[in-house]
């Protein structure tokens, strides 16, 4: 049985009167690596904000399992969100704290573990993301890729069931991006966590995505969903195909017609 870990029901997102996306309806299953994709400005990151409780939907709701996120009391929402971890685009580490303090922050806040135990957990999380020994560094002292991995360690601090990623590979070189993808996948496999990822990196989308939704900025709604590879093979929507092939099929089609024309001549 596949358990739904996150359900988005009939959701409309808007800033005031300006609608970003409407009629969003999809389910993220437990153990998925779910990709939210779409062109720039289609509202991917805004959707993420709605899922992690930072922005209230104009209409509709988000369900964690059976529990509504936006029609719940503040306390309940806090409890639900405690089961999630978020990696922001630039890591969003607090710059006045060392990496160890950054990761220890949610642990000290939400558990009553002793200092020694917290130190061990922090070291473990840092080792998981390949940053063993960097406990006492400040975020400004390490590179962007390392900041991102440290952000991931913080997102995992409380062993969340669902991990959200906002453009994890943005600003990383292809090799680091690939390593981060591998890390995300092995974390999913080993922790049994659900991954929700906002990205438009095609390499990541095809390499690790097991399910996806495609947001379209023009019609302001989702126009496709399903495993990315399947979308590429079966979708008939030209927008989706153009996105998943970096617009190259279009050129191919044009070239083919040109060739045909020239052969006709």
């Amino acid at each position: 049985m596949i358990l739904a870990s996150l359900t988005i029901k009939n959701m409309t997102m808007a800033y005031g009167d300006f609608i970003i996306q409407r009629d969003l309806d999809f389910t993220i299953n437990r153990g998925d690596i779910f990709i939210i994709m779409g062109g720039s400005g289609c509202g991917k990151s805004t959707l993420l904000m709605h899922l992690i409780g930072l922005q209230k939907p104009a209409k509709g709701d988000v369900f964690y399992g059976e529990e509504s996120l936006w029609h719940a009391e503040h306390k309940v929402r806090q409890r639900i969100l405690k089961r999630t971890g978020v990696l922001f685009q630039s890591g969003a580490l607090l710059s006045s704290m060392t990496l160890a303090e950054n990761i220890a922050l949610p642990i000290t806040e939400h558990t009553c573990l002793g200092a020694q135990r917290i130190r061990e957990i922090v070291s473990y999380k840092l080792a998981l993301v390949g940053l063993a020994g960097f406990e006492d560094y400040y975020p400004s002292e390490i590179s962007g890729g390392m900041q991102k991995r440290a952000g991931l360690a913080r997102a995992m601090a409380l062993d969340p069931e669902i991990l959200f990623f906002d453009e994890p590979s943005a600003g990383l070189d292809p090799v680091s991006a690939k390593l981060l993808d591998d890390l995300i996948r092995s974390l999913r496999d080993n922790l049994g966590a659900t991954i929700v990822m906002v990205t438009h990196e095609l390499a990541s989308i095809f390499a690790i995505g097991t399910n996806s939704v495609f947001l379209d900025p023009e019609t302001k709604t989702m126009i496709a969903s399903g495993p990315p590879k399947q979308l590429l093979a079966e979708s008939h929507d030209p927008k989706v195909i153009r996105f998943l092939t970096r617009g190259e099929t279009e050129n191919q089609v044009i070239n083919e017609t040109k060739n045909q024309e020239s052969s006709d001549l």
Partner: protein
Amino acid sequence: MTVMDISSVPCEFKVNHKAPTLEVSIVGDWVLESQAPDLEIVLAQLGDVSQVKRLAFSTEALGRWDSLLMTELIRLIDYGAKQGIQVDTATLPEGIQGLLSLVYAVPERVGARREETKMPWLAVIGNGGLRIQKDAHALVVFIGETMLSVAALARGKARFRWVDLWTYIQDCGPSALPIVSLISLLVGLILAFVGAVQLALFGAQIYIADLVGLGMTREMGGLMAAIIMSGRTGASYAAQLGTMQVNSEIDALKTMGFEPMEFLVLPRILALILIMPLLCLYADLMGIVGGALVTVSFFDVSLVEYLNRTANAVHLTDFTIGIVKCAVFGVLIALSGCMRGMQCGRSASSVGDAATSAVVTGIIFIVIADSLMTIMCNRLGI
């Protein structure tokens, strides 16, 4: 089915020694909320029995697990590695094995870990001295660069947008009027009260006008305006420039061929130099009004008498001294604000530090400069 209903089984290690293997059974639910058993028991076994050559695990009775179990296992494995005991992780669940291989995938970088070292007090003092020297050097460099950009301005070659200058003037002039009015009015009022108590003993209430008029124009008007502007505008300059530094905006300006000193710092300094004398004049007048309020309402002096007395006591020289002082303060505030902003690091907390030290430096400069100028006036007899 809900996870909450499962009553958690207390977690423990059960140790079974079959030489040369020590088998550790992991039992129960290993979750962060539960009370972890003392690892020392296992470690003691390992330490005592020297013939233990291999450590194996059995996990038939393992329930739920999370970071708690992982940290314990890592301690065991690290300990084993140190003692030369082979640790066999093959019987652990796949997920745990996967995580362990991630943990040990990237070896700790040599030299990355930092030892906490306690510095001897002599070194602390020495470092303080070096820091002061570095600060002084940076200040001199900054003043030099400012002078160069002023020279460029004089030659008509400084490049900045005039609209920026007007915006800064608006920001530090008219927008600051309410707070300057309030503070100077109250300072005038306080001066009047302090003086009145003494002067009334001799029936010389009329001299309150002298005290307030001279006090405000020569000293307090400019000083108060400067301290307000240091907190208001100096801090804001430092924060603006600091944030631009964090966002690489200053680097962007440089690559576009602009000189940040001319483009960002010069208009800010100009705005403050132009505005501070006017603010000072305004503060002087508000202070005199404050003094008049007290004297007229409590000490039996008519408004006309008070104003006449003020006009007799306060000369143009007094106003000029105050205004010149205040223009100097303006330069100092702008310098310290812009300098701290330009020196800002590249993180959120360093912007805060820049704003703080801009205000602190600004006020220190103001007070020192004020003392020097007051002594100078005194010696020159003006």
